[in-house]
């Protein structure tokens, strides 16, 4: 029995040796120095990295114009008590007043964050939330899952309306299946319905909500599998269709918000677009028979004349460098174009800054995984 005791003692020693593990800290932000930007009303911008599904790796970066510092991974250390951090799959980012709204799709939440400190202000619980937009002191959230408010087995999505001071849920309204982006124009909210959960029975309408009454007043037929909606500030909205990935190609349409009708279509593919001043910048890819593969286009549209310009908005050299163009934003003051490259989706992506007038690449910068949405921070914030 003496030996049995020795054996136990030996095990005890082994266990003690093995029972220490290094402390697990929240990963710290890290910064890189980039060129400073000329002073304007824009202080800088936040960039939301999606992170892969199940990885819980959505992250927030910030580029400060004055110092030129690009800081990755800000959220964790600013919010040490927020369990498991920002969350899983960052889908949209919006800035309204002094607050940042990060839509974290697979975490079923919209994080409301102080744009100065990156600290959490509130959490809006919205199941399968997709995008945000703002108007008149309210934030509108589109969400795929109607189950909670609409009853079980309902495939339709909904739009939730919250006030931006107390974050009370004001109202919820049913729209089409799997609603995506929204835009406000002419006192109305335009929502792209995709129907992406039931191929080939995609949705093909834009739902129109009257913001005064918060009622759906119309469904405008456009094309299948709608995705992006951007207002041009002149009474028109630009709507993209993803197509069916097989026979029906992606396309871009214009809706007049007086008539609530499609008034134009460009027959160009569109995976992302942004509108700044009188120009719409459009990224899309289409199968090119002369190349025998997909070709990415970086197209510009004059929103006054609705004319497709012949020139791409970045240089051919940059076109060749970007592997998977993803996010897109334009600084309204400097005209600088920011494009993100999601790379292979599973390793850190890149941010490119390009000056169209000078035809020069200002910088390229490593980001988090799948950099997607950019939200500019204004110095004189619109007050709620």
């Amino acid at each position, binding site marked *: 029995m003496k030996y049995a005791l020795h054996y136990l003692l030996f095990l005890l020693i082994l266990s003690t040796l093995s029972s220490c593990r290094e402390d697990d800290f929240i990963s710290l932000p890290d910064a890189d120095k980039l060129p400073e930007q000329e002073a304007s009303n824009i202080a800088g911008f936040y960039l939301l990295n999606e992170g892969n599904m*199940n990885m819980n790796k959505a992250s927030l970066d910030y580029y400060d114009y004055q110092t030129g510092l690009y800081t990755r991974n800000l959220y964790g250390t600013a919010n040490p008590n927020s369990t498991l951090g920002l969350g899983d799959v960052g889908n949209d980012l919006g800035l309204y007043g002094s607050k940042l709204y990060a839509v974290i799709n697979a975490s079923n939440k919209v994080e409301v964050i102080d744009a100065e400190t990156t600290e959490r202000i509130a*959490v809006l619980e919205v199941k399968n939330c997709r995008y945000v937009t703002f108007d008149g002191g309210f934030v509108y959230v589109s969400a795929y899952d109607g189950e909670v408010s609409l009853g079980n087995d309902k495939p339709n999505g909904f739009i939730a309306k919250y006030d931006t001071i107390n974050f009370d849920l004001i109202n919820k309204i049913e729209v089409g299946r799997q609603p995506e982006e929204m835009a406000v124009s002419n006192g109305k909210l335009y929502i792209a319905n995709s129907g992406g959960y039931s191929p080939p029975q995609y949705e093909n309408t834009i739902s129109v909500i009257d913001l005064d009454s918060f009622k759906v007043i119309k469904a405008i037929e456009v094309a299948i599998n709608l995705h992006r909606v951007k207002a041009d500030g002149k009474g028109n909205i630009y709507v993209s269709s993803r197509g069916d990935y097989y026979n029906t190609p992606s396309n871009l349409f214009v809706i007049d918000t007086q008539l609530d009708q499609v008034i134009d279509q460009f027959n160009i593919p569109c995976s992302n677009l942004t509108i700044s001043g009188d120009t719409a910048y459009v990224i899309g890819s289409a199968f090119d028979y002369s190349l025998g593969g997909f070709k990415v286009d970086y197209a510009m549209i004059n929103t006054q004349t609705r004319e497709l310009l012949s020139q791409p908005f970045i240089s051919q050299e940059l076109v060749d460098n970007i592997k998977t163009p993803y996010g897109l934003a334009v600084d309204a003051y400097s005209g600088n174009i920011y494009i993100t490259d999601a790379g292979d989706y*599973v*390793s850190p992506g890149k941010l490119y800054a390009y000056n169209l007038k000078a035809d020069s690449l200002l910088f390229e910068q490593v980001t988090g995984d799948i950099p997607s949405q950019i939200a500019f921070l204004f110095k004189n914030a619109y007050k709620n």
Partner: protein
Amino acid sequence: MIIYKWLPKQEAILLLCALLFIACVCQAQEKYVQNYPSPRDTTAVYDIDGVTVESDRYQSRLRSPMPVQALRGKELEKLNSFSVADAIRYFSGVQLKDYGGIGGLKTINVRSMGSAHTSVFYDGVVIKNAQNGQVDLGKFSLDNIEALELFNGQKSNIFQPALGFFASNTLFMQSKIPVFEDEEQEHAKISFKTGSFGLINPSLLYERRINEGLSVAFNTEYITANGKYKYRYQKENGYDTTATRQNGDIESLRAEITLHQAFKSGGKASLKGYYYESERGLPGAIVANIFSHYQRLWDKNFFVQGMLHKSFFDKHELLVNAKYSSDYNRYIDPNYQTIEGALDNRYYQREFYTSVVNQYMLNSWWDVSLAADYSFNTLDANLYRFTYPSRSSYYIAVSSAIHRDRLEIQANLLGAYVNDKVKFYQKGSDQQVFNPVISVSYQPFTLHENFRIRAFYKESFRMPTFNDLYYTFVGNTFLRPEFTTQYNIGATWQAKPNHILEAFTIQVDGYYNQVKDKIVAMPSANLFRWTMMNLGEVEVKGLETNLRGIKEIANVSLEIGMGYTFQKAIDITASSTVYGDQIPYTPVHSGTFTSSASYQNWQANFSFIYTGERYSQKANLPVNYVQPWYTSDLGLTWKNRYGKYQYSMGLETNNLFNQYYDVVLNFPMPGRNYRLKFNISF
């Protein structure tokens, strides 16, 4: 019980009849085969069922030109393991991808080549998943497993089905074979396990001798568990959240019946029927704000397989295997609401497999064999734009084995032809592959016959799965197979019993692997979807060491085993931003320690597993860093006998120090947990 509705009954019955017929014919034929040569004394002592004859097993392990690790009988009992997946963690060079809990998916990855590069064999016949290439080892209970053997490369016996040669690594699971003493007519064993996670697990084994050569074994097992356990996510100076794992419940039933026939004149046959069904929750990833999931999975698996091993003329041996298997999966996601209701995917897989192996002894030291296998796989699913693929695969292996006293040389030439058919849309292209394999074992010192060195070179491949090729939106029909090249050099030394140790073995292997044309998911050029591509190249350099020793002190028998693995598995994909980084979930250092002490009716065992730091994604950045983990398991068993009844009781404590860890990021593993075991047998 759920009725097996979808099984084409006629087909199954026909097959069963055919197999029975073969078995009968062979038994009848026995009369005419009088002078069957007794199995020659070669080093190829592997039994055709995939495991080694007890007395020869150390010899064979020593002489094997490819590294082999085995766990059998009592060794398995000492590991507190519930499923095959738990046990294989003790093999060197193995990473188990474990999603946690009793019902969580568990797949094996050997020497960082990816889980699709390890073939799993059950009673000598491969288990194939043509849909996604994954074999969930958590579904195989250890209740009726006699032995587990892992070969880097292939089993070192040329008398085996062609598929045994084709994988980069092979794992053999052997169920218990009835052994009757002179007077015995039947055996029975009733076991019961219960413990943490609401586990209730009764099982029954019944074996009966029908006549001198023929016996039947029946084994059934039921498992139910609520799968609930506490886990904790915590950061220094930050959040500290403890929650209970949800939706990890499981209910499963397994039943197996096997007929074993041993022929007087040598050779044998067996016929096995297997049924498994389960319903489980998929507990899902724990991410911010999400602590419960609602997806569920149903499985039904049925197969029948027959084996015949006979010699029909001098110096010749024949091995025939045939199998029919049918798999059904149903997956529902209540959060994915389509116009037809919640997402409800159903998959039906069928396989017909047959293999014929002929071995001929050219002379006293040279054997040659020809193995030819054919398999036919189909997949049906209720998916949008589904292609309804089927696949015919032909495998041929020509082998030569030379056995001299101090030298073993084995060479194989492998050829495969794979042809897919689809009902709709586009099919993948036909594939033809040729692979050479060569392996050598040599005893360099005449005076140290228990010291051997070995080396092998092996090329291998894996076909793109049906999901890789045809999955709606993601599949890519232009895929080519994924190729591996392996180089291995190693040595084994077995010490003779001496005054210090009763037994001591050390085994060391160094290896270099390359994986080319790795099939990975990439963003597709149309910017909306992922697609599968042959893009990725990995280089693996590794070292494995295993030690084993037995010591008797007074009345206590002490057994100790240690394993250490060093692995540099580097992404060498050209133009990749992560070129030179260690691939995800591959620790540089990992190790195991096992020990047991027996004293009279008591037996205590302790085992320890260490997995070093890893990265959860391709880039080796701090944000992707995953902490090392190590668990200690302790077990105590008491055995006794009353007349012909043997009974035992055991208590297991797993993860003794209650370490909270993830094997796969965001899939938390259980903390300290317990299991109580009873069994009675006669």
